[in-house]
């Protein structure tokens, strides 16, 4: 792609270099730690599922049992593998049920040969890896057979709280033209240190993310996809205290996009940074391997800070997220880095600045399927004006070739979308994407004009910020409130007690398998 901004690519490389050092530094910490949800994820990927009679998820019971007995530093793989050697013909699920029923004390079983344990576990793990491979292939088959909508993809949310009502609305949206459906999670699910179970029909401002709900919606979208002759992608939210578990569920149920960003959890959910950075790594490994696009949450910064003043923090964060993703072997083509149209509508030339920002993201991340978020902060109850704000947002997207367009709703400041709001939003986007389709290719930006100058200055500030972070450390920078003006302490927030330092013998078969091979290179 030819640069329309005349960006200083050397400076981009420099900034990227800082980001890499920042990520590598954190990775050192990640590599020597595991967490309760990472271990529960391993269990899930070994086929462990279900709840006990007071609705506690079995993976939680097993991990808690091991942790309470001081064995989590070895990882659940070790203990389950060990038990499988002891009780031959028993699956991880059966062994887990035995634990739940109090039939065995897993940490007290005789410890078998380490290599045999590994071999045993890898056998099972590979079966589930096959299932993920199958999902990945199935997605590709669908895409080859049905095709997909043109970019920017039209992405809408459903959020009724009731998965069956969500299904109706998702199908309607697909018929109207949506390419991607996200089922918004119920308020505060991200703070639960377990994943609820089964089909659910109640939630606040969203629907519980459960494996059964994933399955129900996946089926519905496959059906409607056949009907409309387009593959319809499904999104859910991983960020939170169960990041890798939800990623695993997504991989098993063929979700296509997963919101996945530790920084989001730290800043906007007050999740402990150590915990969620460790969780993020494994979740990204899973997403990367299973062909799931991740979406990062830079857009959120601009809902609290000013989009004009703090534009560089978005770029800085995107660059960091890119490096974290690369370390998890997640290819650029799956990096749905986030940004947002949050310029104050009363700002003279606000649109022009926003155009610069969006084009800059496009040029700095040419292969990434950028996720572009709609105006939210400056939306009001004036739905007529709101629809125009959304139109301008759609224009920027088509002008700068964004990939994933989370459609703005005229009622953003009022309620989660009504059926008709979604239809209005889709109509808006379809009109603009078609009526201005080639405009972006037909215009160029004046040398040294407002757009080029703005992009240049944002890039410079981002590079400076990254250099500082590199020098001070990412965690320290967050402690100082450099992102979104929010300060979070290293030891504050939720979930720190779920972080465990690994033993030398710790192993996680999935990280090894997913990073090492598969159809991902």
């Amino acid at each position: 792609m030819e640069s329309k901004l005349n960006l200083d690519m050397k400076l981009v490389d420099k900034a990227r270099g800082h980001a890499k050092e920042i990520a590598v530094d954190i990775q050192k910490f990640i590599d020597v730690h595991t967490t309760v949800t990472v271990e529960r994820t391993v269990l899930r990927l070994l086929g462990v599922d279900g709840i006990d009679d007071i609705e506690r998820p079995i993976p939680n019971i097993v991990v808690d049992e091991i942790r309470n007995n001081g064995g989590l530093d070895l990882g659940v793989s070790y203990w389950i593998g060990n038990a499988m050697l002891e009780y031959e013909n028993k699956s991880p699920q059966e062994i887990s049920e035995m634990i739940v029923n109090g039939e065995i004390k897993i940490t007290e079983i005789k410890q078998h040969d380490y290599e045999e344990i590994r071999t045993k576990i890898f056998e099972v793990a590979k079966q589930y890896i096959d299932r993920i491979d199958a999902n990945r292939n199935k997605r590709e088959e669908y895409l080859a057979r049905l095709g997909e909508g043109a970019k920017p993809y039209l992405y809408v949310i459903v959020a009724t709280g009731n998965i069956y009502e969500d299904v109706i609305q998702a199908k309607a949206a697909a018929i109207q033209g949506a390419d991607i459906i996200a089922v918004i999670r119920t308020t505060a699910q991200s703070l639960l240190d377990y994943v609820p179970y089964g089909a659910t029909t109640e939630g606040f401002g969203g629907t519980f993310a459960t494996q059964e709900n994933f399955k129900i919606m996946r089926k519905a979208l496959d059906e409607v996809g056949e009907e409309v002759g387009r593959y319809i992608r499904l999104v859910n939210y991983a960020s939170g205290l169960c990041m890798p578990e939800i990623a695993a569920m997504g991989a098993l149920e063929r979700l296509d996009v997963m919101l996945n960003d530790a920084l989001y959890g730290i800043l906007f959910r007050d999740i402990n940074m150590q915990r969620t950075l460790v969780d993020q790594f494994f979740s990204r490994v899973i997403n990367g391997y299973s062909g799931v696009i991740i979406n990062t949450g830079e857009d959120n910064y601009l809902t609290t800070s000013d989009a004009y003043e703090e534009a560089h923090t978005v770029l800085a964060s995107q660059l960091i997220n890119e490096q974290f993703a690369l370390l998890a072997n997640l290819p650029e083509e799956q990096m749905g880095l986030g940004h947002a149209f949050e310029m104050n509508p009363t700002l003279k030339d606000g649109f022009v600045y926003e155009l610069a920002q969006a084009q800059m993201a496009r040029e700095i991340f040419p292969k990434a399927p950028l996720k572009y978020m709609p105006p939210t902060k400056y939306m009001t109850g004036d739905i007529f004006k709101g629809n125009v704000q959304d139109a301008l947002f759609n224009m920027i997207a088509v002008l700068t070739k964004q990939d994933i367009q989370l459609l703005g709703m005229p009622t953003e400041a009022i309620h989660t979308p009504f059926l008709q709001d979604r239809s209005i939003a889709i109509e808006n986007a379809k009109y603009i994407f078609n009526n201005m389709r080639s405009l972006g290719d037909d215009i160029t930006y004046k040398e040294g004009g407002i757009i080029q100058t703005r992009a240049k200055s944002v890039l410079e500030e981002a590079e400076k910020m990254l250099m500082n972070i590199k020098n001070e450390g990412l965690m320290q920078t967050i402690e100082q409130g450099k992102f979104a003006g929010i300060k979070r302490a290293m030891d504050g927030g939720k979930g720190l007690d779920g972080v465990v330092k690994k033993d030398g013998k710790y192993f996680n078969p999935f990280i090894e398998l997913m990073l090492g091979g598969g159809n991902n290179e």
Partner: protein
Amino acid sequence: MSNSVDLTKIKPYGDTLNDGAMQFSFTLPVPFGPEADEAAKILLQKMGIKDASIVHSEDLGIGYTFFVAYGKTTYDVNYEDIDVPKVDNEVMDKYGVEDFINEHIKREVKIIGACTGTDAHTVGIDAIMNMKGYAGHYGLERYKKVETINMGAQVPNEVLLAKAIEENVDAIIISQIVTQKEVHIKNLTNFIELVEAEGVRDKFILICGGPRIGHELAKELGFDAGFGRGSFAEDVASFVVNQIVDRDLI
């Protein structure tokens, strides 16, 4: 599935079946402020809206206030009871109509059309009558065995009727686009009165059309049929040829 609609009691749907959710906007001639919002809310309550919420209010600058509101209606509608009068013949395409004429009428069908009164909007009537038609549907002029006379805009009712009688047409088709102060109703009523005064009501098939006209309204006014937004030449042609046969105007 949780969602099963009781058609005898339908209600608006926001995001949950029967939630009754509706959107409103309107202006009240009172100054911007909390009292204005309250007045808007009370109005909605009187209309049977519960949980009325004024989500936006704006000072219009002359002591009037504009509101956007949401709320939930307490009314429902029995959908199964609804019976909308419709043109009941099947719609044939151009070739179908031409075949029908060849087979059943065996002569030229003559149709006169105009946009009457002060109305100068010819695009609608041209869409029906002119060669090129509209949105890919050919106009009546292009139909074999259909002769058309398009008198254009602002044609007085008297002139149109005189010409129809002179030309001995089968059908008279009238377009009315402007509806302010019910001017279309007055105009169409006056036309029917003229036709009746001349004693020629049974000689002609009378049709009117326009974006605010429906079959039901047309029947009420004394026309044989009415066609609203999104009608095409074939709708009119199919109706006319069927009527010629049914009413034995061959």
